[in-house]
């Protein structure tokens, strides 16, 4: 890794000041997340609000997991455990179909000999500037007409293919030496065999990148499920949490525990695969 700020033979003039300032900034940036976790362990919303304005916001003298028990067992208007399961199911189904469809298409576009693949590729690249926001209402109309509103299918099927992910994988597959493909053809492998036995095993970093992006996208979906779900049986976690914001009073204790639960798996994956997360984010930037 190059280090552009300091050149060889040059001494750092303010190492302590730099270290202290970055420490303070990092602390300030991270403190809201810390506050979230601490507040979620407080017994009720009144204590959370009462202690918000002092240093007690960052400390809990009487920690309890009651909020967590409440959201995970409560089955009334906000069955949070149900939302959580819904989100997990949507995530897994989206990933399973999405990884397969996107990578198969990208493989054919990158290496196949089928007619019209340049046309398909051009169309895909053209489509990825279409913002999701501008197609959701016509899409809702389609779902209405085919009777898929308020289902898991409506939240999974549209995400089984995406121009962005196809393009990212296409770019990666294009860089794999052609010899590898040709050698497999010589050995008599069919396109699917080449894809499955040759390309997939050497593409794990690219697949991981796309899986992370797709997973985060699915987990955080808000606008689309807000439109397409009505009942608790299909609502995902993000829409469920938004339901804690009431007209009169917000159940901060429950909202906070729910937020921690929503964030925990992402954080876990992030801590395990930090490098891949960061590279995923960089590569998602090609979307314009």
């Amino acid at each position, binding site marked *: 890794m190059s280090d*552009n700020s300091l050149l060889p033979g040059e001494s750092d003039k303010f190492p302590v000041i730099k270290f202290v300032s970055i420490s303070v900034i990092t602390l300030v940036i*991270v403190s809201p997340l810390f506050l979230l976790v601490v507040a979620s362990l407080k017994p009720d919303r009144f204590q959370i609000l009462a202690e918000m304005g002092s240093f007690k916001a960052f400390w809990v003298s009487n920690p309890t997991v009651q909020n967590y028990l409440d959201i995970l067992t409560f089955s009334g208007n906000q069955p949070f455990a149900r939302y959580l399961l819904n989100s997990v199911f949507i995530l897994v189904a989206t990933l399973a179909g999405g990884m397969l469809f996107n990578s198969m298409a990208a493989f054919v576009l990158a290496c196949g000999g089928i007619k019209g693949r340049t046309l398909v590729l051009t169309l895909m690249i053209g489509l990825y500037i279409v913002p999701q926001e501008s197609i959701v209402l016509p899409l809702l109309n389609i779902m209405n007409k085919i009777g898929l509103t308020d289902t898991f299918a409506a939240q999974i099927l549209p995400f089984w293919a995406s121009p962005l992910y196809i393009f990212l994988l296409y770019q990666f597959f294009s860089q794999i030496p052609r010899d590898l493909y040709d050698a497999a053809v010589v050995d008599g492998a*069919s396109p699917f065999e080449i894809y499955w036995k040759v390309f997939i095993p050497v593409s794990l970093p690219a697949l991981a990148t796309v899986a992370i992006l797709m997973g985060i996208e699915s987990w955080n979906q808000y*606008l689309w499920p807000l439109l397409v779900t009505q009942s608790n049986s299909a609502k995902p976690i993000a829409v469920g949490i938004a339901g804690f914001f009431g007209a009169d009073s917000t159940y901060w204790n429950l909202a906070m525990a729910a937020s921690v639960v929503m964030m925990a798996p992402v954080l876990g994956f992030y801590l395990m695969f930090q490098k891949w997360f960061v590279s995923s984010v960089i590569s998602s930037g090609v979307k314009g």
Partner: protein
Amino acid sequence: MSLHQGPTGALQRPKRWLKPRQQEFLMLLPACVVVALFLLLPFLMSFPISLTNERLIPRPVKFVGLKNYIEVLTDPVFWQALWNVTRFTAMVVPVQCGFALAMALMINQKLPFRNFFRGALFLPAITSMTVVCVIWGTLFQFPTGPLNQIIGFVTFGMAGPVDWLGTESSSMPAIVLLSAWQAYGFQMVVYLAGLQSIPNDLYEAARLDGAKTWGRFRYVTWPGLRQTNIFVIIITTIQAFKLFTQINILTQGGPRDSTNTVVQYMYNVGFVGQKLGLASAVAVILFLIVLAISLLRNATS
């Protein structure tokens, strides 16, 4: 066919039930069907729907020409929403990108625990916007939220508590703050990649020419980041114009439309108001805005 022969001509394979091109077709098909049905079709439909009086509830549909566009473009609330996202963009782009660049410059230096700082500073970027709304909704609490307490403390109680999200003048800046906090990590890592792609020779040369820290930034780093800057600013601008989730959860566009946005307006008209035709006109306008910004990117790079 299906008799693949190696260069030696010795290899013979049993007949396959599908020719290679047919197999490729079948591999490409699922993704194409999904994209065609759930992206291309609704996209293409938005244009004709925007010329009708269609509603989400099925009923006879009538062609109304440009009436929806006229209705949207003469609605002061739409202009307020468009003005708001413009205002939001003008605030969030410099704040978010500027902070991201500053942080990238800091963690690109020799620092103890550099990887720890990098990992910690990226945490907000992996936080879902819904969770961000829960956190910042509390921070902005009126009148006893942490932000108000800190301000009261710093000013010795001179500045009274502010209803951040509930006052017209402060609602949008408050949204800017939480949005920038959530998203700057993305720009930070992109800037970091940009910084690391600047060749060290240039810094060496600048040092030989006697350039100090500022001189090196001004004449090496800044020009070296030109492409990164264009990229980051365009992406951030496009995202800013699509502002929705935090608005929908925290303010619903209020107070008095001061945080209403184009997407929230579309949501109100099309989903709450069920006027699909009208909302499609807004969707087309949104698409044209995003398209224009994307073309700007192509023109500048």
